[in-house]
Structures are given as C-alpha cells and as structure tokens.
C-alpha cells in the first residue's frame, strides 16, 4: 500500500539543513551542539513516526523530480529501508552525544559535526532511495562527506588514509554507476520498489556484467575481501567516526546496497535461475573467516575491530546471497545487530583511549577494574558477536544457519561455527585481560569514562541485550525485518 508522504524526503533533508547551520555556527559550541542534537532528535522522530505505518504494511513514497520516464529522484520508505533508517538515526543520536564528549577541545569541530550530520543524512537517503539513481546519488555524496572526517586530523597518515579511502570508494562508485546505467539500459527503470526489475532475457553476459559491477561497487564499502583494504587504514579517524561510519553508515550502506541488488534489482527468482549468488556466497564466507583470522593477529584495538567488522559485514552479504527467507531475515537483522554491538565496542575503545590513552590489546590488563561499566558493555558486545544464545548475534547466526540449510548449503553452517570460534578467540582474550589480569603499572583506581561517553555506551549495550531477547516483540527490529522479508520473497516469513 503506497502513500504519498514527504517524510522520506524530509528525513535526509533535516540533517542537510542542520549541517548548514552547524557550519554556520563556527566556533560557537552551544549552537553547534544545539543544532546537532535537535536535528538528530527530529530525524529520529520523523523516522519513528513512520514506523507504525510500516508495520501495517504502508509504504511511504515521495517523488521529487523525474528527468525522463524511469529516471528521477524519488523516495520510498519500505520496511527494509525503514529498518535501516531506524538503525542509523538511532545510532546517530547516540553517537552525536558521544562525539560531543569525545571531541571536546579538538580543532575544527564545526567542520566535523557538519560533515557528520551530512553523512547520516546521506545514509538515511540511501535507506529511503526509491530507485538506484537516487541510491547512487546519496551513495556518492556519502563518500565525499566522509572524506573530511577521515582526514580530520590532517596528519600525513590521515591524508594517506583519506587517499586510499577515496581511491577504493570512488572506483566502487564508478562500478555502481556503470551497473546502474547498464541496468537502466536493460530494464528501462531503476526502481527499487519491485522484487527485481531486470528481465531474464537481457542476455547472460549483460546480466553478469551488471551483477558484477553492482556487487563490486557496493562490495567496496561493504568491505568484501579483497575490496576491504581501505577500512583498516580509515581507523585513523576520530573514534566516533570509526564508530558510526565504519560500523554503521558507510559499511552498512555497502551491505545494504548488496541486499538491494539481490532483492530488488535482480530479484530472488532471477538470481536463482542465474546462479550468480553462489560465488558471492563463497566470497562472503571467505571474508568471514579470513577477516576473523586477521583480526586475531591485530594488537591495535581499532584495527582488531576493523577486521572484525570486515568479517561481520559478510554475514549480511552471505545471508542475502543464500536467497532463502531465513537467510534474508538473518541478513537484515544483522544490519542492526552488528551495528549496535560494534558501535558499543568502538565507544568503549574510544573511551579507553580518551581516559587512559591506551590503544593496544596488550595494554588492557586490568582495565576492567578501572572502567567497570565500559568493560561490561564491551563484554556484552563480545558475547553477542561470538553468538552466545540470548544475545543478538546468536539470532543472526541461528537464522543464517537455517537459511543455509534451507538453501541446501550446509557447508555454510560449518562456516558459522568456525567463525564463532574465531570470534571467541579474538574477543575473549580482551575480556580476559581486562578482568583477570592486573595492570603492570599498578594504577588501580577507578577511572570510568565521563558521562557523555558512558551513557551512549550503556544504552547501546542495553540495546544489544534487548535485541537478542525481544525477537517476538512487535515494533522491535525483528518484526520490521519480517515485513521486509515478506516483501522480498512475496511469502510470509516462517518464524521457527
């Protein structure tokens, strides 16, 4: 049921406007914070206001401009988009609070918060893009708006990371553009409102090229190996950036794109016929394992988180590539699960860095005693990633395994298991160090993170817990994911 409503347009626009106001605020901290926070709140409210409708199956659409038939800028808040928008606007609100605390005393804060707002704006734009063109529009804008955040420190190292980041993402953008153009040429439309637009008779080579171009294009941001090289380097950015962008916005936009390609550009049926998804699934499986393996070897905290992110993102890709309703549910859910868990971890790492200056795993001995609340949150996130039942990560892995079986590819269940082991292998040592080893320096006093950092950490951790426990509560992400899956597969998702 489609309803014309400007809210899918307003949601991204809000933070665009806010960005302008933040830039204009200059050195005035009050107005900078005021505009940042109020935009976050308004945006969250806007998105939430559409949630009831979405749960009822309402789809909000808004066409801005049509250049020629089939090409235009249009917005559409379907269930999957809503899901993604909810995750990002919630996390933006939290991250903004965290960032206000974290960035205290840093130079160029207006630039930082301005582009920060722009990034989230584009993320929500991606979520609500009605067609691939609009999607691409925001996708590329995101690239550009992230750049100033990556090079924020203006050190040579940061500039180099920025260069690498741009090289990867812009080439990826090129592939997306190429795929989109070819898709339009083949289908005559770019809408994402259908379960697949490409005609089966478009020719195998053409379809393969389109698939490859789009997957490579989005795969860069989704950090599918071997396209992941930019992500660890980008960790040079301030922690809130790593947290929001490299846990949610940028990387998820990539993963979101991959799922859109699978469900809405090609469609499950066509892909099943074509068999393109199988290699993608294998690639994702490889990334899951290899990412984890490399994470294991990283001593630098943020880099370990980065490789973990690479690994986790491919859960989403794998889930989508399996082409079954269960796997799809897992994929969609993991967008939220991974986001909240990973952001918790980044927040904690940032808080550790801010309060103690420690950046390496090996330096964390005894940190649990000094920052009990933070490390508790970290532990919750770690448990979730490992897939301990009742935690959010378990839900993902459970559905993913079901989906793999549904697709007749039991081998991926094995991948899940190995991955869980690897997850455990690189997260638990941190927990172990934090709680069961004494710091060498003997500085044992409690130095918890300041409230502006701690509050978002705790909220996120709580949410991770909640996500695992509330799969049956309407209005929680799970229900939204279900609606989305029903749309993609045109069948009611089976809840085991």
């Amino acid at each position, binding site marked *: 049921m489609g309803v014309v409503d400007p809210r899918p347009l307003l949601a991204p626009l809000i933070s665009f406007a806010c960005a302008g106001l933040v830039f204009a605020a200059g050195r005035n901290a009050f107005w900078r914070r005021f505009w940042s926070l109020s935009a976050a709140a308004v945006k969250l409210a806007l998105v939430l206001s559409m949630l009831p409708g979405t749960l009822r199956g309402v789809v909000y659409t808004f066409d801005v401009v*049509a*250049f020629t038939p089939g090409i235009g800028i249009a917005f559409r808040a379907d269930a999957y988009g809503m899901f993604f928008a909810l995750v990002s606007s919630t996390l933006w609100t939290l991250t903004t609070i965290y960032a206000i605390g974290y960035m205290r005393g840093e130079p160029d804060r207006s630039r930082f918060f301005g582009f920060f707002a722009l990034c989230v704006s584009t993320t929500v734009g991606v979520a609500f893009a009605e067609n691939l063109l609009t999607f691409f529009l925001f996708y590329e804008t995101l690239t550009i708006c992230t750049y*100033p955040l990556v090079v924020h420190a203006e050190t040579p190292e940061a500039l180099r990371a920025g260069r690498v980041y741009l090289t990867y993402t812009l080439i990826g953008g*090129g592939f997306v*553009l*190429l795929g989109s*153009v070819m898709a339009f040429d083949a289908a005559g439309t770019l809408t994402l409102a259908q379960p697949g637009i490409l005609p089966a008779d478009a020719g195998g080579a053409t379809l393969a090229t389109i698939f490859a171009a789009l997957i490579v294009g989005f795969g860069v941001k989704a950090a599918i190996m071997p396209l992941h090289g930019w992500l660890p380097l980008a960790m040079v950015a301030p922690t809130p950036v790593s947290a929001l962008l490299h846990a949610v916005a940028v990387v998820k936009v990539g993963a979101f794109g991959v799922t859109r390609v699978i469900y809405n550009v090609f469609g499950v049926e066509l892909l099943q016929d074509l068999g393109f998804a199988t290699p993608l699934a294998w690639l994702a499986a490889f990334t899951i394992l290899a990412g984890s393996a490399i994470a294991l070897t990283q001593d630098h905290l943020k880099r370990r988180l980065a490789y973990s992110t690479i690994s986790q993102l491919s859960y989403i890709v794998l889930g989508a590539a399996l082409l079954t309703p269960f796997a799809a549910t897992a994929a969609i859910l993991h967008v939220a699960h991974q986001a909240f868990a990973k952001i918790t971890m980044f927040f904690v790492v940032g808080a550790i860095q801010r309060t103690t200056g420690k950046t390496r795993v090996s330096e964390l001995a005894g940190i649990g005693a000094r920052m009990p609340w933070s490390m508790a949150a970290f532990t919750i996130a770690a448990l979730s990633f490992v897939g301990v039942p009742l935690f959010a990560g378990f839900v993902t892995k459970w559905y993913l395994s079901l989906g793999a079986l549904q697709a007749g590819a039991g081998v991926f269940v094995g991948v899940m298991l190995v991955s869980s082991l690897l997850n455990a292998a690189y997260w638990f040592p941190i927990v172990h160090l934090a709680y069961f080893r004494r710091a060498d320096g003997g500085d044992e006093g409690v130095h918890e993170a300041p409230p502006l950092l701690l509050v978002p950490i705790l909220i996120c951790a709580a949410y991770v817990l909640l996500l695992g426990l509330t799969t049956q509560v309407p209005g929680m992400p799970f229900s939204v994911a279900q609606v989305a899956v029903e749309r993609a597969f045109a069948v009611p998702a089976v809840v085991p």
Partner: protein
Amino acid sequence: MSVAWEQLLPWAVALPFVGAALTPVLAARSPRWTGPWAWGVVLATVAVTVGLVAHVAEAGAFTYAIGGWSGAYGIELRFDRFAAWVLPLSLLFAVIVPFSWRYVVVSLEPARWGAFYALLLLVMGGMIGFSITGDLFNLFVFMEVTSLSSYALVAVGGRGVAAWAALKYLFLGAVASLLALLGTALLFVLTGSLNLADVAARLGPDVARGPVLIAFAALVTSFLVKAAVFPLHVWLPDAHAIAPSPVSAVLSGLVVKTGIVGLVRVVQLFHAADAVPLAGFHLALAWLGAVSIVMGAFLAIFQDDLKLMLAYSTISNVGYIVLGFGLAAPYAAVGASVHVVNHALIKTTLFLAAGALIHQTGFRTLSDLRGVARAMPQTAAVMAIGAVSIVGLPPTAGFLCKWYIALGAFEADRAPFGFALVFGALFIFVYYIRMVNALYFQAPVHARVAEATEVPWSMRAPLLLLAASCLVLGLLGGAPLAFVEPAVAGVLPVGGP
C-alpha cells in the same frame, strides 16, 4: 505589449559589437566608466538573448534573412533550439565583467581599460553570431572575431610568457581557421552555395566524394582544435593558465564551446546531406572524446599550478561533450548538450574563484595555497562547490551529464565507452580532491596565505552567485532537459530520447 522578438535577432550580435566599438571612444574620455558601460552592454544583450530564447521555447525555431535576402541568396540567421540552448551562456558575461573590474583597475594601466572591455564584448558578440548564423562563410568570420579577441585577451596579463602563450594559441587557432575556410571554400566550389541548409541540400549523390570528404575533414579538424580535443589541445593549457582569471573563465568556459557548436553544425550539415560516412566519424569522435577525458584528467593530476590544473580539466570535460556527441545516441547527445552549459558555468566559477585566491594571496600553486580555506572560507567554499560540481558527483548537474552520456553509450551498444567514461571520471576526482586537500586540510606554509583576507565584494558577489547557480543547476536536475531534448532532436542524426 508584444515584442517582435524575431526582428531583434541580428541585434543580439550588433549590440555587443556597437558596444565594443564605442568602448574606446568612452575610454578616451573617462576610462573609469568603461567597465560599467561594458556591463550595461552585456546586460542589454542578455536581455535580448533571453527574450529570444523564451520566444523560441514558445514558438520554435525561426530564420532571419539579413537584408531581406532569404535562403541562399544572402546571409541567413537561424535560431534553432540548439542555439537557444547554448546562447544563454552569454549570461556568464554578466558576472565575469563585474568580476574583472577589480582586476582591471589593479593590473592594467587606464590606457588599456577600454580595449580590454572591448575585447570581452567582441568575444561575446562573436560567439553569439557564431551560434546563430546559418551561413558557412559567416560562421568563419564570426569565429575570427572570437578567436582574435581571445588571442589578445590571453596576452593582456603579462609580457613575455603571456605573449608567447598567446602566440602559440594564435598559430594553432589560425591554422584551425584556415582549415575552416578551406572546407568552406571546397563546399562552396562543389555546391555554389554558402547557406548551411542549402549546401546540405545540394550535396547530392552526384557530387564528388573526395573533395566532400576533405571539406568535412578540414571543418571537423578545425573545430576539434578550437574545442581543444586531445591531441589537438596543445595550445590550451598555457593560454588558459596564463591569461588573467576572468579571461581564463571566458576562454575555458565559453570560447572552447564554439568548437563544439561548430562541430554540431558540421555534423548537422553532413547528416542532412548524407555525403560522408558519419558512422565511422562518430566512432572516431567518440574515441577522441574518451581519450581526451582520460588524458586531460591524467595530465591535470600532475599540475601544481591551480589554473593549469583547471585548464587541463577543460580538455577532459570537452572530452565528455565530444564523446557524448560522438556516441550519436539521443541520451548521450542530451548529456553532451547539458554539459556544454554545465561545464561553462562550473569552469567559470572555478577560474574566477582561483583568480580570487591568486589575487588575494599572490600565489598560484597548490603547494603555496595550502590552508587558504581558513583565511578565505567563502572563496574556498566556492572552489569546493565548483570542484564537486565538475567532478560530477550527485546531485550536481555534472552527474546528470555523465549519467546521460553513459546511458547513451549503452544505448548505442558501445559499452566500452561507458566504461571509459565512468572510470575516466575517477581521474578527475583525483586532482580535485588534491585541490580540496590543499585548500582545506593542509597547514598554510606562507604567512601571506594564512593572513589573507576575503576578496572585495565586487569579486565575491559574482563568486557566490556562481556557486549558488552551480548548486541550483544541480538541484534543478532534469528541469532543463525538457528544453534540451527537442534541441538535440533538431541537431542530431537521431531523434530525441
């Protein structure tokens, strides 16, 4: 009251010419007033132009017989939709002229003010005439007005280097003009006519192919040189980089477009005549465009001189346009046509902003201009907006152009060009990012840069206006398409999309 707009067509050319002729007269009395006078002339011309464009949008194309001699018996002006699409480019003069006031006052002695503004008006008049004439020889003469004033404008700013750059430009430009004349002469000998439409009609199958091909090649080469398509671009970088910034804006934004307009006219003519193998030609054109995109961008990457970088970027952008027309597909042609205007606007913005930076700091290389954004935030922001626009990032109009051209590539079953286009664009990203990096993310190395002040309002207002226009043109997105599509349908060997 209704204005008989059609009757005003020749005055769109005559007004700037008369204004130019009177400028030195005025300069002899009070040089101070030449700038405002030139601006007034520009505004009057623009008013006529806009009225004409509106008229065409409403009533369609029309012809005007100079002296009442219609058809081939005299000189005919033809105001079609393509002309109506490119003509509003003269609007940019309304911004460039006031921008140059400060430059003129600071850098030129009063004895030269009149001549400078006269040349600007002559460039404008020549371009307008070039776009609307329906006569081959007349095309040549108008081209000469524009070219000759461009050569001189390049040399206005300095002594040795500028004169040398201008002379190089002159030599290549003169050879190009000569080729155009040769082509015109051949067609005239073959058909006995100079009227574009009439020549097309008379180039029947009984006309010898050899000379026709040579005429075609001569005309095309001529306009490719004027458009600075790689490898015929060699005159451009120095000329555009060394010229005073308002002049660079005129040259890069507008004058190279005469080559494009000429190309379109030639293709139009020969398509109507069906006298040369246009398919092969289009393919060659597409290749040239693709190579220009890549090479222009590639060469731009290595430039430290801000204006030189912008100059190379022009080669690259002209490549887009040429590729778009070369693909000979409706979508691609639309994209190319839009990019003609789009690039003009953006490149004007960029060159003027670069000029403002150079004017205030005295430095012109990126390494010297590092960190200037802190001292001149508004100018730097204009620069950044220009960069984003020209790179063709969504949601700017530049993106739309690329989109359409790439679409045309697939539409015409020439996928490799789609690939070349999309990935050639990445080169362009590279150097604009370098520019933004230098301006914003690097610390100043010169005290003069760190302590620079914003440009005076006579320069700042045009800059802000242009930057706003870039954004608006982008946000308008497809609005102009309604106008372009019929325009392109009229000039291309293919129908509209």
